């Protein structure tokens, strides 16, 4: 998707502290509609905290968050989900005992309009709605992420790489306007990384999806390859923001990573 100039998500002067630990300090950012916006930084830099603030799991002590011009700082997570903010988790958060299909369906729950009673009787409009949602899941998500062969498998039985894919599928079921991806590539092998990078590009570029992505990731090869813009955090503070190449050359970023040089320079490709 072509990146537009329209600011979809605006975070201004966010502060978040856990006791004496300042996890975020005056962080501001603007994500434009259609972008792949990546957040990098050493472990403990506050990347996941930032995502948690954006989707409402944490409430910052100070600062505001605007989504499509609307102040959502006080919104609850489900209210933000209704607006079209979806996310995946670094540690897979799926219902392990249920099937892949059921997990994805749960992600679609927010779009169900029939009530509890008509839903349980499964008749008329309720049945119709259910079938429509199933068609949506099959056509748009299962086909895109190539998980036809596991749709009826129980999640806990699947290898990690596939669980990661199901996690993404569940997030997509919401039909989001913006998707927050928390380390989608962590723990994957080379082939799985390549697949996942392709899926992220598909979600961002395919005419059908055109979804803005906020990506938190350590795999610098992929981040620098697919991002439109990159922001670097260190100890809760923004230390750089710009085009991938600029951020890569930024002296402060290099310094922040010095202790873990391998993260920045030695990537999987």
């Amino acid at each position, binding site marked *: 998707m072509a990146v537009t100039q329209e600011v979809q998500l605006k975070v201004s002067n966010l502060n978040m502290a856990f006791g004496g630990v300042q996890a975020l300090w005056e962080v501001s950012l603007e994500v434009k509609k259609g972008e792949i916006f990546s957040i990098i930084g050493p472990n403990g830099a506050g990347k996941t905290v930032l995502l948690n603030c954006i989707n409402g799991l944490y409430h910052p002590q100070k600062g505001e968050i605007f989504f499509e011009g609307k102040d959502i700082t006080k919104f609850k997570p489900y209210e933000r989900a209704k607006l079209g903010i979806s996310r995946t988790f670094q540690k897979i958060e799926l219902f392990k005992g249920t099937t892949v299909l059921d997990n994805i369906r749960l992600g679609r729950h927010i779009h169900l309009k029939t009530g509890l009673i008509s839903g349980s009787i499964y008749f008329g409009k309720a049945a119709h709605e259910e079938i429509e949602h*199933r*068609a949506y899941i*099959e*056509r748009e998500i*299962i*086909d895109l992420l*190539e998980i*036809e*062969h596991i*749709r009826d498998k129980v999640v806990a039985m699947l290898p990690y790489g596939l669980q990661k894919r199901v996690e993404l599928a569940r997030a997509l079921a919401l039909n989001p306007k913006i998707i927050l991806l928390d380390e989608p590539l962590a723990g994957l092998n080379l082939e799985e990384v390549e697949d996942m990078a*392709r899926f992220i590009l*598909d979600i961002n*570029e*395919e*005419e059908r999806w055109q979804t803005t992505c906020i990506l938190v990731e350590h795999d610098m090869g992929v981040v620098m390859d697919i991002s439109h813009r990159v922001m670097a955090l260190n100890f809760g503070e923004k230390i750089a923001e710009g085009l991938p190449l600029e951020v890569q050359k930024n002296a402060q970023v290099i310094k922040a990573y010095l202790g873990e040089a391998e993260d920045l320079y030695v990537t999987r490709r």
Partner: protein
Amino acid sequence: MSHAANWKEIEITSDLTIPKLFLQSAKKYWDKKVAMREKEFGIWNPITWKQYYENVKRIALGMVSLGLRREDKVAMIGDNRPEALWAEMAAMCIGGVGVWLFQDSLIDEVQYIIDHSDTQLIVGEGQEEVDKFISIKEKCQKVKRMIWDDPKGMRPYDDPILINLKEVMRIGEEIEKKEPGLFEDLVMKGKGDDVCLLFYTSGTTSLPKGALLTHYNMLTMGRNLMRVDPYFETDDFVSYLPFAWIGEQMMSISCGIQAGFTLNFPEEPETAQENIREIGPHIMFAPPRVYEQMVRNVQVKYLDASWLKRKTYELAMGIGYRKADLKFSKRPIPWYWKALDTLAYAGVHKKLKDHLGLSRIRYTYTGGAAMGPDHFRFFHAIDVNLKQIYGQTEIAGISVLHRNKDIKFDTVGTPIPDTEVKITPEGEIISKSPSVFRGYYKMPEETAKSLREGWLHSGDTGFIDGDGHLVVFDRTKDVMTLRDGTKFAPQYLETRLKFSPYIKDVWTIGDNKPYITSVICIDYAVVGKWAEDRNIAYTSYPELSQIPEVYELIRKEIAKMNKDLPPVAKINKFINLYKEFDPDDDELTRTRKLRRAFVEERYKDIVGGLYSNTDKVHMDTTITYEDGRVARIITDLQVMEVPE
């Protein structure tokens, strides 16, 4: 068979072609019958003969507008899907010649075949195939256009050589409006003696050779097969093996179009086994590895089951084996065995059949390579009518077949009607039938070698046994001479060993050697599970293969088989290879036959180690991934003896 009355044979004249028959069937069934189904987005979508016909017509006319003329070659590559078959049929309809490529072919093979066949038009599935072709475009100057049909990931491609199948069909529809009847005229121009397929064989020794097959070849082969085992329009068949394998062409095209049965295409290659179960086909033809995998799945589930379930299975299989053995030896089955078998069937066999997708199966065939007697017995024990087929691409697929109730697992059966099979004084199997091919494309010397006075020389060694059954010993050049001068087929040992769920592939060595040895490729999934259950840690195939406990496991499996063998034929030593044999490394053909001469050269260090007093072989070699990347491997392999 109750269906027999419905079976009406089609008269095959020198004028009849596959497209003409296609037109007849389409008009006969029109929108009353489903020609094919494809599972897509979780749902089986039917395609009627009317839709089949209309799609083929559009594509055919579209191809004409892209400049395709009679006898031009159309190469196809991709998964089994309706569009692939439409394209093949469309090419045949306008007099083109179909060339099929294996989807997992390495780029050099693709380039060789496209170039050698003088292909003008390529039909590929999607991005992967398009990428393959674009990377060799410069070296394949004869190709005018490439058609693709799956839009996934195709958004950034703007090379003018590419064209979407939808666009081709749209052009075809316009031509149809301008010149109605053109399509039928083109079909009518075809003659039975026209070449319809240029089929590249996956030679175990040399460069692929392109066999020229005519409509007459394909149709007579199908007819002669169906004279033995009739297929009906009510039957279902699942098409999931590569179209580049003659067996799939023989079922989907030669027989499918004559019998009018319904073809079913799985959702994805990974879902094939599940989809087969959903359809419950009546006919199935697959190379041995498919059946071997089925048996392995059952065995693994067995190892994992509870005590009671294991005992029930053992009991039921014992009864089944007993009955199968009586059947094989054509002895009458006593009433009490019949009664026991009925119980075993109701309790176990029926369920097994259902899980394997074989509950409605009437005939199931294996061919293309040798299959071990143990696998054969397994299927007959659970009452699956598994038969051996023998044939070559050069005879349009099949020439010899088991008859119902006359099945011997060490033979391949008797010739199908209209087919003669003889053994030359040298022991080579030769055959003659209306389905024998025209020759190899642009290889007159090779043609002269295999086609002499109408007889097709197979290069296989065999003999005809007392019951008139053909026994295929092995590829002539593969037959081993043991230390006492007896001839022995390595395939026999290999197929026997493959019955062990832990062993995926075997290569047996012993020609003119003091004793027999084996190189074993363990089954990663099964052995991996076995190791996990015993808390044995490993991280990769190479590591797992070298663990002492795994060696011990394999040694026991070999010793078990050795018990039934004469002393000279016992396996003496073996090595677990650090990888599986792979077509990408040229060790197997695309149809997964071992290329012995090649592996012998590649692993000469291993062979050396097996025939010396060492207990370790040092390896330093490379492996190739499908995308052409090469990785280096340095490792030590242990040599283990199997005490007699």
